[in-house]
Structure formats: C-alpha cells, structure tokens
C-alpha cells in the first residue's frame, strides 16, 4: 500500500541533534566559487532541502507517478492518495479544522493573488478598505494595489516605526468600520519583525473584517495554529520550509473558500462542462485548476514530516539562540547598524544590517568570497527600505541547520569587508 511505501515520521520529537540534522543536508558541505566552505545564511529567500525530501520526490516519480483524481488505474490511485495525504499532513501542521480547506498553489504569491481574485474581487465594493502594513513583502502589496485600481477600493498601510515594529496607535486608527480585509504578514522577511497578530486580529474582527496572514516566514520557523490565531486566510510557501519550489498553500475557512470564485478555469476544477456553461467542483478542487505540482506536493509532505519530527518549538528555540548570538556579535562590529527590533524574542531568525560606507551589494560580494551566502537588496520590501531611509540592507537569515560557528564566520567576513573597504 502507498502508506507503507512512504512511512510517516515518528510522533515523538527527538532531541535537537544539530550534527545529525546537518548530515541530512549534503549541500551544506560544498564549497563556493572561491573555494571557501559554504555558510548558507539566505534561508529567508529559500531553505535547503534534506535528503528525505529529495528522496521522496525521486521515489514519487520512480514508483508512483501518474496524474491524479482522474484515473482508475493503480498508479493514478496511488498518486492521488499521496497527494491528498499531504493535504491532511498540511492541515495537521497548522491545525486547520478540515483538510479540504487546504488549497495547493504554486507559492505564497499565488495564494495571495487567489484571495485577491477569487474572494476580494467578488465581495469588496468601491469605498471598502483593505489595510496592510509597511512591513509587507511585495506579494502582499501589489495584488491589493491592482485590485484597488480595478475596483475603486481604498488601500491603507499601517506605518512601521524606526525600530522595525508596527505603529499600533496608527493601527487602531486605520482599522475601522470600512475595513473589509486586513492583509498582514506574520513575520517580516526584510527585518524579521514578528507582527503582533494577537493585537491586530481582534482590531480587525471587532469591525467584522476578514484577515489574511502572509505566513511565508512564520510557518517555516515557529508553531502556527490557524485556529488559535483566529484568522481567515493563511498563505505560505513550501520552498522556505525544506520543500520544493513551485508549491504553496492557501488555507482558508471553508465558508470563505466555498463562496470564492475560481481564479483559473480548466480541468479538475469543474463538475460539468457543456459548450454553454460549466459548474464548479467542490472546494478545494474548484481552486486547483489543471494538473498541480503533484511530485512537489508529495515532496512537501516529507518536509512537513521532517519539521514535525524536529518539533516547531525546538526549531523556534534553535533560531532564537542563533539570532540572540548574532545580534550580540554583529552588534559589536564597528560600523555595523542592525535594523529591526532590539529584542531577539520579537524577531524571527533574520538579521538585517548595514556596514558604514559599504554598500550592501559589496558586503554580499565579499561575504560570498568567504563562503557566506547572505542577501543584499531590498528583499522585495521596498516600503521597509523607504521607512528606514536606506536603499538596501544586507540580510542574514537562519534555519534549522545553522550553527553558532556559522554566525562566527559571518562576523569574521563582515570584519574582513570592513578592513577591505578601509572602514574598520
């Protein structure tokens, strides 16, 4: 049986064995172009994948590959079972009430656009307001701007304070009776700021607004319980949490998904089609037109099991330790400015920084020579850069396999950059 072919992860969390974890990621042993050993600190952009995920994808294509939902033959039934099994694994991972509320997309971006097209476009009227924050990734800004321009909806942004936290006084003023949607990220990819959903969500709910959470940076790094959050839509991407690219998730409350219009028309999303008209299939099929990324979704299942086995509490604790250490060590380097909340508890495993008189791109370039992979740029969050009045920052971001030694490598490389540009 299919279930036997791909064993479920053990339910009991094991101890946090970093050496064992690192053995699951052979890529961490490679060198970069300069010959230096890789120190991968660009996890907010995408994580690496463990051998378990790679093996799962290989096994799917080798042993079970077929299209889903439409065949009576053995392979199609196995593929369907595997694909639908991951829907349940995903449901459990975020504690959603029902598996049919999990819609597989190509990523967070598609998930947000699906809500914009299928829900907001149908239910929001001219004059209604969408409230977002200045900390959003472009994928939680641009779809709303497009809808605003099309529909005459108002779009407002809760400003960011200088320390990278949200201006909650402004939030209380901006979220009001006209607010129909609060579109907010759970954690900023640019600064790591963890947004105070426990304060924001009740503000929105008090006015009957729907809440969409961009959890692209949250679900991979901390325990997320969509029912406890009391939100309506949650979007995230598999590739930031050990899974393959091209897979994402939109979770939504059943009534909302059920009321939504499909975003794309095609195969798999219909009940009947005549040349005159079509009727839609049930949720989630209605929202998953065409052949999905079956192999990717199956691989994502292995990623979820891997994280589940580690325990998301442990993942969070590990990243918190690295973040605390990095804030202290980098903060000691002359000329370094760190952006975002001072308190490690208020951020995910992201440290955005600049070095006096050295452009972030130059930092990134010299760090690469030392093997240290970080991100330099605006991180798809130009409003954050504008609020900080910087063109770009350098950003190190951590995940389950990073170590304090790697933070030391980061710090040494930043010091080397400083020496090279004559600032240190």
């Amino acid at each position, binding site marked *: 049986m299919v279930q036997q072919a791909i064993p479920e992860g053990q339910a009991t969390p094991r101890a946090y064995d970093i050496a064992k974890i690192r053995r699951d990621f052979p890529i961490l042993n490679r060198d970069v172009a*300069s010959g230096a050993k890789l120190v991968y600190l660009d996890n907010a952009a995408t994580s690496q994948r463990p051998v378990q995920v790679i093996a799962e994808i290989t096994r799917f294509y080798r042993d079970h590959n077929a299209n889903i939902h439409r065949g009576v033959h053995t392979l199609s039934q196995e593929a369907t079972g595997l694909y639908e099994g991951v829907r349940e694994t995903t449901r459990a991972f975020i504690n959603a009430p029902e598996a049919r509320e999990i819609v597989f997309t190509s990523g967070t971006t598609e998930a947000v656009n699906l809500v914009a097209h299928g829900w907001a476009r149908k239910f929001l009227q001219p004059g209604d307001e969408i409230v977002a924050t200045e900390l959003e990734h472009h994928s939680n800004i641009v779809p709303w701007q497009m809808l605003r321009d099309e529909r005459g909806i108002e779009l407002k942004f809760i400003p960011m304070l200088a320390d990278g936290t949200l201006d909650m006084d402004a939030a209380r003023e901006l979220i009001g009776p006209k607010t129909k949607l609060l579109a907010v990220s759970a954690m900023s*990819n640019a600064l790591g700021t963890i947004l105070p959903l426990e304060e924001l969500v009740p503000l929105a709910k008090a006015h009957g607004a729907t809440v969409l959470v961009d959890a692209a940076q949250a679900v991979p790094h901390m325990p997320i319980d969509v029912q406890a959050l009391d939100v309506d839509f949650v979007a995230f991407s598999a590739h930031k949490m050990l899974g393959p690219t091209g897979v994402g998730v939109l979770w939504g409350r059943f009534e909302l998904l059920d009321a939504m219009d499909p975003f794309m028309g095609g195969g798999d999303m219909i009940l009947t089609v005549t040349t005159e008209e079509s009727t839609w299939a049930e949720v989630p099929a209605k929202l998953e037109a065409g052949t999905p990324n079956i192999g990717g979704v199956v691989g994502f299942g292995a990623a979820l099991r891997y994280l589940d086995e580690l325990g998301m509490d442990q993942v969070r604790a590990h990243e918190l330790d690295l973040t605390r250490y990095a804030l202290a060590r980098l903060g000691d380097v002359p000329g370094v400015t760190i952006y975002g909340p001072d308190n490690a508890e208020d951020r995910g495993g992201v440290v955005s920084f600049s070095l006096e008189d050295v452009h972030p791109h130059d930092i990134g370039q010299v760090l690469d*020579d030392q093997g240290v992979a970080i*991100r330099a740029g*605006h991180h*798809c969050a130009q409003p954050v850069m504008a609020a900080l009045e910087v063109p770009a920052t350098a950003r190190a971001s951590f995940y389950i396999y990073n170590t304090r*030694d790697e933070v030391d490598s980061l710090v040494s490389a930043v010091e*080397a950059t400083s020496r090279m540009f004559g600032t240190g």
Partner: protein
Amino acid sequence: MTATRDLESGGSLMDDLYREVILEHYRSPRNRGELDTPTCSADGANPLCGDQIHIELILDGDEIVDLKFSGEGCSISQASASMMTEQVRGHDRDHAQAASDAFQQLMLTGEPGEFDLGDSEMLAGVAKFPARVKCASLAWKTLEQALKTDSTEPVTTDERTADHG
C-alpha cells in the same frame, strides 16, 4: 574556528574585482556633485541593487566642457562613474561614444582593447561577475542618455526589479 580568507593576497577573483584603484575612486570620487549651469543631464538606476546616478553636463558645441555625477550605489557603480567622468571630461561626443563602446566591450570580454580607457580599464575584472556588469555600466549608459540632449528619459541597466526575498 572561522578561517577568514586572506583578501589581501594576490591573484584571487576578489582582487580582480576590487582593485585598489577602484576602492580609491570609491573612497574619493572625482567630479562628484552638481553643476550650476548644466546644459543637459540624465538619471540612471539599477533597480536590482538600488544604484542611482544623476549626471550633469555642460556641452559647448560637441565638447564636454564639464560634467559631474551624484547618486548612491555600490563601490563598482560609484567608482565606475568617477572614472568615466575623468575619461570624457574635455573630450567631444564622438570620443565619449567611442569610450562608452570600448567600455561595453571591456565588460563583455574582460580584456582592454585598442581604445585607452585609463583607470576604467581597472574594471576589467567585473566581467567575471555578470551580476555586477550592470553596476559598472550604469554611469556609461547614463552618460549616453545625457548626450542625447533632447532626451530626459531615465535609463536603467536592469529591467528586472525582482529580488526574491
């Protein structure tokens, strides 16, 4: 625990990119600032890394009597702008265009050609870093734009603003 690679040692790719002359232009740029009475100007941007440049010229007939640049960006973009101004100041349009063509060639091949580009030739190492070619080319592209006096269109060395954060 952490072995810092020696950046000062010769022969590495890093040394090819960040030649001392380049860092020197970055630290003390030539012809930086604004002119009182420019006859033409242009803006350039490299959205991928946020490099921005503004170039002002005083043209007397075909001669570039004076020029200055302002803006901000990475060391490569700023040093290249500084070197460019030295290269074309006091020369005519044809010379500036020929220099710009030679510079694009340098970025393609990594080898200086017939045309003497002065300090700008020190940027040859950039050719090995495709992502940085746009940084180095920005000043030249913007100069070309400014020389088309009837045009005030901003230029960009990169159509993409994608930065998958």
